[in-house]
């Protein structure tokens, strides 16, 4: 075998094995979990999954909550970011540079540190325990990267197309709708998926804003499970929960890998 082939196999094993171990554990009976390497007497079961699905509130509820927050955050972010990016792409070089540096610095910010102040705001405005309200901080946190990505996309468009449309008498909204928006659609798709992944995975703010157990998002639900299991050994149900929580995202990544990679890389090149 060539050197590269071996390296690629190691890479795949390293990337997948922690997850595969969860899958393996999740299908094992409690006694088999205690002896993971005695393959001959290994017993398989679906019991762990049944336990997770029958829990109260049911597990799909957390997936639904995360999906709701992810979608509303994505829509709200794009709604704010597209006009802002257009404005930046049309401003002069100096303003554009300053705005982009400011956005770049905010996108570096470790947002975990914002949780306390955001929690105070949520309490003051009485919007804790509200999934839709959660998309407000999520949008704010996604905006810097989203604007950086989309304004580069607008900048890359040749000016004559829009100019021609303007001469034809199309207003800004019409130009947006018929010309600009279709042209930046690929960049929009990349941005949308990255925002969605971020909102789906976000933990500290969801943890502090939402306390009702039927409203918590998936990462918080998993952390609660983790918190309650410190000393308990029957891990099978927890493994099943991590697998059920991971699978939807794995599907998203495999389906949209092109958009995700181009979004991340555009962020690095143009940011």
């Amino acid at each position: 075998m060539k050197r590269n082939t071996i390296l690629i196999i190691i890479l795949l094993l390293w990337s997948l094995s922690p997850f595969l171990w969860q899958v393996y554990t999740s299908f094992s009976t409690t006694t088999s979990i205690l002896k993971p390497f005695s393959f001959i007497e290994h017993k398989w079961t679906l019991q762990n999954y049944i336990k997770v699905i029958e829990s109260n509130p049911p597990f799909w509820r957390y997936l639904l909550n995360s999906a709701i927050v992810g979608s509303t955050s994505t829509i709200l972010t794009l709604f704010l970011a597209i006009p802002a990016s257009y404005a930046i792409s049309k401003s002069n070089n100096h303003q554009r540079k300053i705005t982009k540096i400011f956005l770049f610095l905010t996108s570096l910010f470790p947002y975990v540190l914002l949780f306390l102040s955001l929690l105070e705001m949520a309490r003051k405005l009485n919007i804790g325990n509200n999934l839709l309200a959660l998309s407000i901080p999520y949008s704010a946190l996604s905006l810097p990267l989203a604007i950086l990505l989309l304004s580069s996309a607008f900048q890359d468009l040749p000016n004559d197309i829009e100019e021609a449309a303007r001469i034809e008498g199309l207003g800004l909204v019409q130009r947006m709708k018929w010309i600009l928006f279709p042209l930046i659609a690929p960049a929009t798709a990349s941005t949308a998926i990255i925002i969605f992944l971020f909102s789906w995975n976000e933990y500290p703010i969801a943890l502090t804003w939402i306390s009702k157990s039927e409203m918590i998002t998936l990462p918080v639900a998993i952390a609660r499970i983790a918190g309650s299991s410190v000393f308990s050994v029957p891990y099978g149900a927890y493994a099943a929960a991590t697998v059920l929580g991971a699978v939807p995202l794995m599907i998203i990544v495999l389906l949209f890998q092109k958009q995700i990679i181009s979004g991340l890389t555009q962020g690095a090149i143009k940011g």
Partner: protein
Amino acid sequence: MNILLLLPALILIFIVFVIPIVRYYWLSIHASSVMTGLIPVPNNGSNWLRILSDDRFWQDLFQTLRFTFTSVTIEILLAIVIALLLNQKFQGRGIIRAISLLPWALPTTIMALGWRWIFNTPYGPIEQIFTLLGIGTINILSNPHLAWIATVIADVWKTTPFIMIILLAGLQTIPSDLYEAFKLEGGTEIQSFFKITFPLLQPYLIISILFRIAQAFGVFDLIQVMTGGGPANSTESLGLYAYINSMRFLDFGYSATIIFLTFIILIGFCILGWLLISQSKRFLSSEI
């Protein structure tokens, strides 16, 4: 007209990023805890006196720095290797890139729980293998000297793909005829890495190092789920300490002080990073 399009986004960014920092400074010079009924009362900087002599804060700062530098260094080195590997042409490259990106895309809490199980004593695979090999158990997660290494491993697993993708983008901007010309002049593969790849990759390296230092400095999810900060607070990060102070001890004033000081320390690192960036001419001449 243009500014009207920009304003809603900027206002939201301002509310979420700028106001909290001002608020933290303000809270840090107030007592706001259960004792005051969470109503801020000025307390003449006693939070700041307290933090200076708070051993747990300095221990957590040490731990956060140790975690940040170890994991970011390993991640960068690994990411360079993987990016070089995945930059070559071979069958199924797309799908292998996607698979290697998976760890980054999964929620941190999910895989932190998974890693906790992997390091579990005595049923996790690592301890089981050690037992089978006759080395005996090492109890990694309950050893205050070793537990942080387990968190580094989990973090490396999770975030290396992100850096790798950014470096891969950098590699793809390097024209291949550079390598061919270098080869014609008799340069070896290793020389070409240091003479061509590394210099041209520098801006991407700087961006990813800056980004990862800032993010690792705020590490929270991973530690909270994997170790809860234990054993004996040995893995507790500054973010987790701030969280514990506000949510468990209900001391918002002190929690804000921790966050504000963490932020100041981080700015120090950013300035350091900025100096690095300003040295990279290519970065400045690019079209930002």
